[in-house]
C-alpha cells in the first residue's frame, strides 16, 4: 500500500515537473486567442481541447512571452477572457468558460411585437444552458429567476429568436421580437436557378431533407414515396435494386409509359433516382406544372424532380458526420401457408375431382391414411418417415414440408453506413460523402445479396472575386448476386407449382425431388425444377451497375447582378449481367440420377455488357436587376445533350466445368452474339423572365426551343412556351387589418406547353433487320445455312413531338404566424399528338398501318396540402411539433383516338384511363331451385356460366350447381356474353372499377422535446381496383392451379359448401380462374378488390444524448422502421399479397415487399 502511494506521488510530481519544465516564447499583436493556441501547442507537448464555440476564443490578445513557463503563459493568455483551463491526462489542456457564481435574481419583463407593439402571448423565455424557463402570459409578461451574466433566450414561432444578457442591476426587461423572415426568405430550387418560395407562381412542392434523410431505405425512390400527393411511385418488386415506375399527376402519355418519366436532375445533371444517397440530399423540388418545367424542354414532359445535394459552407469548420444503422427486413405479408401434407393433397384432389374425374395426386385411401397419421409431425417421426421407398425403388411422399421456408428467409439482415465531411472558408467549400449499404435477399438457398457503394465529392472554389469554379463528382456501384435463373422473378412464379406440402425437397439419399411417378402420375414437375436447381447451387447470376457523374461548372460575375454560368457534365454508366446455368440432376428412383430436361437446365453462360454515355452542356446568363420595388430576373441560355448506348451480349453452351464461368471454358454452340447501338442528340435554347413588384404582383414567362434527333429533319424542332401570374394579396395595404392572423395569401395561375420526345430512337426511319437465318433446308451447298435481311414496315416520316399543355390554378395561404399553411392546386393537362396507329389504309397496302401523331388525352386533377407547425415551452424546453398532410386525385380521359368502333381491346374516344370492364355477379347460387330458375332465364351457352373449363367435358359435376357464381344478364338478352367487345355493345359487361390510384394521400406527425424526437409518416391510396388474373395463384389457390403449393391455412373456410353458404369463394373446382373463358377468369364485381391502402411508411424515434458535448456537436441514437404497418381491404381475403405488389401486375407475382427495422446512431463532430 505504502509503495503504491509513493509511486503515485512520484508520478504526480513528475507530471508537475513536466509542466513546469515547459516554456513558451512568442510575440503576438492583436491576434485572436484561437490562432495563438496552435502556436503554444507547437512549443510544448500539450494539446488544447475545447468547444469551437467557446466564448472568448475570438478575443484579441497582445502578448510577449520569453521562455515563460507554460502555466504562467496560459494565465496571461486567458486573462480577462473568462476562459479557464485544466491540465488533464495525456498532455491535454481542457478549456472552458469560468463559472461565476452570483446570486439568483427575480427577472420580470414583457415580450412585444416589434412591428405592432402588441404583446406576444405564449412566447418562450428560457435561461440559456439550463432547464429553467417560462412562457409569457396574456399580456406578454413573464417572470423567472436568473443570475447576472446568464442569457435569456426569447422565442416564438414566426419570430426571430432574441437573446439578452442579464445585466447587473437590471431586473426588468422589454423584449421586442421581430417577425422571422426565414419562411419569407425560404428559397426553392427551380429550373436554372432558385426562387423565393413566396414568389413562386408555378406548381412546385418541396420535400425537405429531414423527411427523407436517415430513412432505412436502400435508395431515394422509396423514401420519396408518399412525399407529395402528386407523385405516384410504384415499385416493380420488393427486392433489392428493384426497378420502379413513377409519374407526376398521372401518366403524361399512353405511349412508353415506362420511359415517359419525370426528369430527375441531381445538381442539374440527369441521374437515376434510385442511385442517389438520401443522406446527401439538401432538398427536393417537384416541378408539377408546365410553366415550372417548360424551361427544361423535351425531357420534362412528365414533370421534373430537382434534387439538390448538400454543400460545404463558408465559415464552417470541418465537420464530420457518421451515420450507422443495422437491422433486419421481413415480409410485409403473411406467409402462414399450409404445411400439412394431408391438407395439401386433399384440397388439390377435391378441386381436381370437380374439374375432371381424375384426382391430382392419384393417392389411395391408404396413402391418405399415411398422410393423416403424420398430420401433426412437424419433423419426421421414425415410426412414420416422410419418404417411403417402394419395392421398385421409386419414392412415395407423405411429408409435412414447409416450402415457403425452404425457398425464402423471413428475417434477413441489412446494414447501412454513411460518413460525410463538410466545411469551408471564404475561398473554398467542400462536401464529401460515402455510403456502404448491404442487405441479404429473401432467397434462402444460396442466399441472394445486394451490396451498394456510393460516394460524392463536391467542391466550390472562389477562384477570383468574379470567378467561381465548382466540381461535383459522384460514383455509384451496386452488385447483386443471386441464384437460380436469369430472371430472379422466376422463383416466385414457378417455385410453388407442384411444391405441395406432402412432397419434400430431397429424397432420403439427399438427391433432389423433381419428377416422380407418384406426383401427378409422373407429370408434376416440383417447382418446375426450381428447388432442385437452387439446391444444386451451380446456377449463378450477377448484376453489376456502375454510374459515374462528373460535373464542372464555372460562374462568372460579369457585372453587378449579371452572371454567366457554364457547365459540362459527363455521365458514364455501365451494366454488366452474367448468368450461368448448368444441367440439374434429380432422382425419382433410389440409386438413379437423371437430368432435368427444360430450358432452365442447360449448360450455358450468358454475358451482357451495356455502356451508357451522356455529355451535357449548359451555358446561360442570369441577370437580376432590382430598382425600387421592381425585381427582375432574366435567364437565357443553351442546353445540349448527346447520349450513346452500346450493348453487347453473348451466350455459349457447354462449359468444361460447372464451377467456373467464363467464355474461355465454353466449347459448345454460340447461341447468341449481338450488339446494339443507339444515339440521341438534343439541342435546346431557353429563356425566362421573372418579375415582381414589391413581392406583390408576380409574373413569369419562359420559352424553350428543342430539337431532337429522334425525328426526321423538318420535324425536329418544338417550341414550348410557359407563363404564370401570381398575386400576393397579403402584401396589399388593405390586408393590414387581418395581417396579424392571416399572414400569407397568394393566388397563382399558370399555363404552359411541354413536348415529349420519348418515341423510339429511329421511329421515322424504315429499318432493315439483317439477322435472319433460313432453316437448314435452304442452303446453296447443302451445308451452309443462308442468311437474309428483312425490310420492316414503312414508317411515317412526319412523326413529331407529342405536346402537353397544362393549366394550373393554385392558392397558397398562411395563418397565425405561418404556423398553419395551406396549398391547393387544380390543373388540366391536355396531351396532343400521341403516337398511335393512324388512318387505316386499304388492305392492298400490304403492311401494318404506320403510326401518326393522332391521339389526344386530357387529365384533370387537384391537390391539397395542409401543415401546422408550432412550438411551446414545456418544462423549460421547446416542444416543437408539426402535423401535416396532403391529398390529390386526377382523372384522365382519351379525347381522340383512331378507334371509331370503340373496340375495348384498345383505347377509344371517351375512355377513362384505367377503366376496368367486367361482369356483374349477384352472389352465389345457394340451392338447386335457384339454379333451375336462373336457367329458365339465361341460356348457358358459354363456359363462364357453365363453369366448365373449355374442352373438358368429362368433369365430375358439369353445368351450374349451387355454389357457383350468378352472372347478371345486364342487357337482358338471355345470354351472358361480351357483346361485340365495344364500348357501345359490351354485352353484359360494364365499367366496374378503375385500376389507376385514386386519392393519393399522406400525413405526418413529428415532435421534438428534450432531445427526444419522433416522426411518423403515413402514405396511402384511397382506392385502386384490382382484378386478380390467371396467375395470381396465391389469391386464387387451387381455383387457378390445383397444384399451387402456397395456400393460406384458413383457405377452405372461405370456400362455399352447403355447410358454409356465406363463403367468399364459390364451390371448389380447379382451373376456374385460369383463363378468361372460365367462371372466375373475366373481371367481375364479386372478386374485384380495392387495393387502396394506408401504410405507415416510416416511424423514427431518436434521442440526442446530452453528453460528450466537448467531442460531438450531436450524438443521436435512434430506431427507425420502414413500412412497419399496412391496412388494406385486400387483407380480408388474401394476406399473402401486399397491395402494392398487386398493382405491379394483375398476377401479383414479384419479389416480396419488405418492412425494415433498424437501430442506428448519428455522430457529428
Amino acid at each position, binding site marked *: 500500500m505504502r509503495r503504491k502511494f509513493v509511486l503515485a506521488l512520484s508520478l504526480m510530481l513528475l507530471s508537475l515537473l513536466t509542466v513546469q519544465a515547459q516554456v513558451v516564447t512568442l510575440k503576438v499583436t492583436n491576434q485572436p486567442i484561437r490562432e495563438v493556441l496552435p502556436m503554444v501547442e507547437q512549443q510544448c507537448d500539450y494539446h488544447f481541447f475545447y468547444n469551437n464555440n467557446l466564448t472568448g476564443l475570438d478575443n484579441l490578445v497582445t502578448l510577449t512571452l520569453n521562455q515563460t513557463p507554460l502555466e504562467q503563459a496560459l494565465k496571461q493568455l486567458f486573462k480577462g477572457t473568462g476562459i479557464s483551463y485544466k491540465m488533464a491526462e495525456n498532455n491535454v489542456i481542457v478549456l472552458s468558460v469560468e463559472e461565476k457564481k452570483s446570486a439568483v435574481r427575480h427577472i420580470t419583463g414583457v415580450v412585444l411585437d416589434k412591428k405592432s407593439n402588441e404583446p406576444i402571448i405564449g412566447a418562450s423565455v428560457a435561461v440559456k444552458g439550463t432547464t429553467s424557463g417560462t412562457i409569457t402570459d396574456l399580456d406578454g409578461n413573464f417572470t423567472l429567476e436568473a443570475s447576472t451574466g446568464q442569457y435569456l433566450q426569447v422565442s416564438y414561432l414566426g419570430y426571430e429568436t432574441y437573446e439578452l444578457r442579464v445585466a447587473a442591476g437590471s431586473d426588468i426587461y422589454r423584449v421586442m421580437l421581430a417577425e422571422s423572415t426565414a419562411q419569407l426568405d425560404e428559397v426553392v430550387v427551380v429550373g436554372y436557378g432558385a426562387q423565393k418560395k413566396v414568389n413562386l407562381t408555378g406548381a412546385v412542392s418541396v420535400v425537405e431533407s429531414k423527411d427523407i434523410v436517415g430513412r432505412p431505405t436502400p435508395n431515394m425512390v422509396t423514401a420519396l414515396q408518399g412525399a407529395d400527393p402528386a407523385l405516384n411511385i410504384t415499385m416493380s418488386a420488393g427486392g433489392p435494386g428493384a426497378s420502379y415506375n413513377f409519374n407526376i399527376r398521372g401518366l403524361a402519355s399512353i405511349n412508353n409509359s415506362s420511359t415517359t418519366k419525370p426528369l430527375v436532375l441531381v445538381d442539374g445533371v440527369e441521374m437515376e433516382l434510385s442511385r442517389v444517397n438520401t443522406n446527401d440530399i439538401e432538398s427536393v423540388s417537384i416541378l408539377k406544372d408546365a410553366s415550372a418545367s417548360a424551361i427544361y424542354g423535351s425531357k420534362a414532359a412528365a414533370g421534373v424532380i430537382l434534387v439538390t445535394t448538400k454543400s460545404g459552407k463558408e465559415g464552417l469548420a470541418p465537420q464530420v458526420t457518421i451515420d450507422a444503422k443495422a437491422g433486419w427486413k421481413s415480409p410485409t405479408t403473411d406467409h402462414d401457408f399450409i404445411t400439412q401434407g394431408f391438407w395439401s393433397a386433399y384440397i388439390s384432389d377435391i378441386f381436381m375431382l370437380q374439374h375432371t374425374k381424375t384426382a391430382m395426386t392419384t393417392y389411395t*385411401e*391408404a396413402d391418405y*391414411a399415411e398422410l393423416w*397419421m403424420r*398430420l401433426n409431425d412437424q419433423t419426421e417421426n421414425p*415410426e412414420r418417415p416422410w419418404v*417411403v421407398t*417402394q419395392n421398385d425403388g421409386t419414392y412415395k411422399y407423405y411429408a409435412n414440408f414447409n416450402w415457403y421456408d425452404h425457398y425464402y428467409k423471413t428475417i434477413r439482415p441489412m446494414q447501412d453506413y454513411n460518413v460525410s465531411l463538410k466545411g469551408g472558408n471564404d475561398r473554398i467549400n467542400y462536401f464529401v460523402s460515402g455510403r456502404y449499404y448491404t442487405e441479404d435477399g429473401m432467397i434462402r438457398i444460396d442466399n441472394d445479396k445486394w451490396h451498394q457503394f456510393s460516394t460524392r465529392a463536391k467542391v466550390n472554389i472562389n477562384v477570383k472575386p468574379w470567378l467561381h469554379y465548382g466540381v461535383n463528382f459522384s460514383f455509384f456501384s451496386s452488385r447483386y448476386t443471386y441464384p437460380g435463373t436469369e430472371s430472379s422473378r422466376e422463383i416466385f412464379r414457378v417455385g410453388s407449382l407442384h411444391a405441395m406440402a406432402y412432397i419434400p425437397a430431397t429424397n432420403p439419399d439427399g438427391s433432389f425431388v423433381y419428377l416422380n411417378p407418384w406426383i401427378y402420375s409422373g407429370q408434376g414437375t416440383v417447382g418446375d425444377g426450381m428447388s432442385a436447381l437452387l439446391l444444386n447451387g451451380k446456377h449463378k447470376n450477377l448484376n453489376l451497375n456502375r454510374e459515374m457523374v462528373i460535373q464542372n461548372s464555372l460562374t462568372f460575375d460579369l457585372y453587378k447582378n449579371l452572371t454567366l454560368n457554364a457547365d459540362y457534365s459527363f455521365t458514364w454508366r455501365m451494366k454488366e449481367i452474367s448468368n450461368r446455368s448448368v444441367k440439374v440432376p434429380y432422382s425419382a428412383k433410389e440409386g438413379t440420377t437423371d437430368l432435368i430436361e427444360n430450358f432452365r437446365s442447360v449448360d450455358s453462360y450468358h454475358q451482357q455488357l451495356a455502356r451508357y454515355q451522356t455529355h451535357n452542356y449548359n451555358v446561360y446568363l442570369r441577370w437580376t436587376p432590382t430598382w425600387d420595388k421592381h425585381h427582375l430576373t432574366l435567364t437565357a441560355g443553351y442546353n445540349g445533350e448527346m447520349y450513346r448506348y452500346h450493348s453487347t451480349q453473348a451466350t455459349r453452351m457447354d462449359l468444361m466445368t460447372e464451377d467456373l464461368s467464363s467464355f474461355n471454358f465454353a466449347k459448345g454452340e454460340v447461341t447468341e452474339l449481338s450488339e446494339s447501338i443507339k444515339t440521341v442528340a438534343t439541342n435546346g435554347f431557353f429563356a425566362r423572365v421573372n418579375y415582381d413588384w414589391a413581392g406583390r404582383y408576380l409574373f413569369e414567362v419562359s420559352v424553350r426551343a428543342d430539337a431532337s434527333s429522334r425525328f426526321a429533319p423538318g420535324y425536329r424542332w418544338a417550341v414550348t412556351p410557359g407563363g404564370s401570374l401570381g398575386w400576393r394579396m397579403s402584401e396589399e395595404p388593405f390586408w393590414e387589418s387581418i395581417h396579424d392572423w392571416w399572414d400569407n395569401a397568394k393566388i397563382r395561375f399558370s399555363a404552359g406547353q411541354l413536348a415529349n420526345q420519348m418515341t423510339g430512337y429511329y421511329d421515322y426511319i424504315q429499318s432493315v433487320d439483317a439477322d435472319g437465318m433460313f432453316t437448314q433446308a435452304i442452303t446453296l451447298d447443302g451445308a451452309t445455312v443462308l442468311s437474309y435481311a428483312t425490310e420492316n414496315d414503312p414508317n411515317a416520316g412526319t412523326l413529331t413531338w407529342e405536346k402537353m399543355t397544362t393549366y394550373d390554378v393554385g392558392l397558397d395561404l398562411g395563418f397565425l404566424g405561418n404556423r398553419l399553411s395551406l396549398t391547393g392546386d387544380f390543373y388540366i393537362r391536355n396531351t396532343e399528338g400521341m403516337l398511335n396507329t393512324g388512318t387505316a389504309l386499304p388492305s392492298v397496302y400490304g403492311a401494318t398501318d404506320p403510326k401518326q401523331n393522332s391521339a389526344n388525352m386530357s387529365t384533370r386533377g387537384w391537390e391539397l396540402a395542409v401543415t401546422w407547425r408550432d412550438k411551446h415551452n414545456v418544462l423549460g424546453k421547446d416542444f416543437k411539433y408539426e402535423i401535416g398532410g396532403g391529398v390529390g386525385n386526377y382523372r384522365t380521359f382519351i379525347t381522340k383516338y383512331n378507334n371509331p368502333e370503340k373496340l375495348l381491346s384498345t383505347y377509344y374516344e371517351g375512355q377513362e384511363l384505367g377503366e376496368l370492364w367486367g361482369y356483374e355477379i349477384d352472389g352465389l347460387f345457394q340451392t338447386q331451385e335457384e339454379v333451375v330458375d336462373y336457367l329458365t332465364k339465361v341460356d348457358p351457352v358459354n363456359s363462364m356460366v357453365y363453369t366448365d373449363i373449355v374442352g373438358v367435358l368429362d368433369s365430375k359435376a358439369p353445368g351450374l350447381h349451387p355454389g357457383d357464381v350468378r352472372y347478371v344478364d345486364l342487357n337482358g338478352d338471355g345470354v351472358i356474353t361480351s357483346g361485340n367487345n365495344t364500348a357501345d355493345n359490351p354485352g353484359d359487361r360494364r365499367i366496374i372499377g378503375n385500376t389507376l390510384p385514386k386519392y393519393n394521400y399522406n400525413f405526418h406527425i413529428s415532435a421534438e422535446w428534450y432531445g427526444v424526437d419522433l416522426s411518423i409518416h403515413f402514405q396511402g391510396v384511397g382506392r385502386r381496383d384490382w382484378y386478380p388474373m390467371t396467375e395470381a395463384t396465391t389469391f386464387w389457390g387451387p381455383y387457378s392451379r390445383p397444384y399451387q403449393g402456397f395456400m393460406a391455412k384458413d383457405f*377452405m373456410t372461405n370456400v362455399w*359448401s352447403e355447410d358454409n353458404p356465406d363463403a367468399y369463394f364459390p364451390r371448389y373446382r380447379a382451373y376456374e380462374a385460369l383463363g378468361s373463358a372460365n367462371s372466375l377468369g373475366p373481371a367481375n364485381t364479386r372478386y374485384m378488390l380495392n387495393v387502396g391502402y394506408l401504410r405507415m411508411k416510416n416511424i423514427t424515434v431518436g434521442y440526442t444524448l446530452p453528453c460528450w458535448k466537448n467531442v460531438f456537436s450531436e450524438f443521436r441514437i435512434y430506431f427507425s422502421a420502414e413500412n412497419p404497418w399496412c391496412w388494406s381491404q385486400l387483407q380480408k381475403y388474401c394476406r399473402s399479397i401486399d397491395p402494392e405488389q398487386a398493382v405491379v401486375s394483375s398476377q401479383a407475382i414479384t419479389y416480396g415487399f419488405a418492412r425494415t427495422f433498424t437501430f442506428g446512431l448519428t455522430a457529428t463532430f
Partner: protein
Amino acid sequence: MKRTYIFALFSLVLAFVACTGEKARELPTFSTITVTPAKEVYALGDSVQCSITMLTPGDASLKEAKYWFYTSWWGSDPNMTADFCTPDTVDGIVSFTSSKIALTKAGEVRIYFWGRLEYPNWDFQPVQIPVTIHVQ
C-alpha cells in the same frame, strides 16, 4: 364496494365467454384396444387381432368417418398399408376389429387404432388410440 366490483367483473367475463366461446365439438369415445390372444410377451411371427369398442358416438353432425388399425413398424414398409375396418354393431354396441396382424418386429411395439372424422365445413378430427405390446 370491492365485492360489487369483483362480482361485476366476473359477470362481464362470464358473459363474454358465453357469447364468444365456441362450443367444443363432442367427439366419439372409445374403449382401450383389446389384443387377442392376450399375452404378456409375444413371439416374433405370432399373429394377433385387435378390437376396440365405441363408447359414445359423439356429435351427430358427423358426415363421414374412416377407421383403421396400424402398427409402429409399418410406416417404412411399402407393402403394409392401413388396415381399414368398418363398424360392427351388435345389440347397439359398435366395435371395430382388425385383420390378423403378424408381429414381425421385436421389442416394445405399438398398435394404433386411428380415425379420421369429417364434420361440416372441413372440420376434420383425429382419433388415435395406441396399445403397446412386447415382442421377443
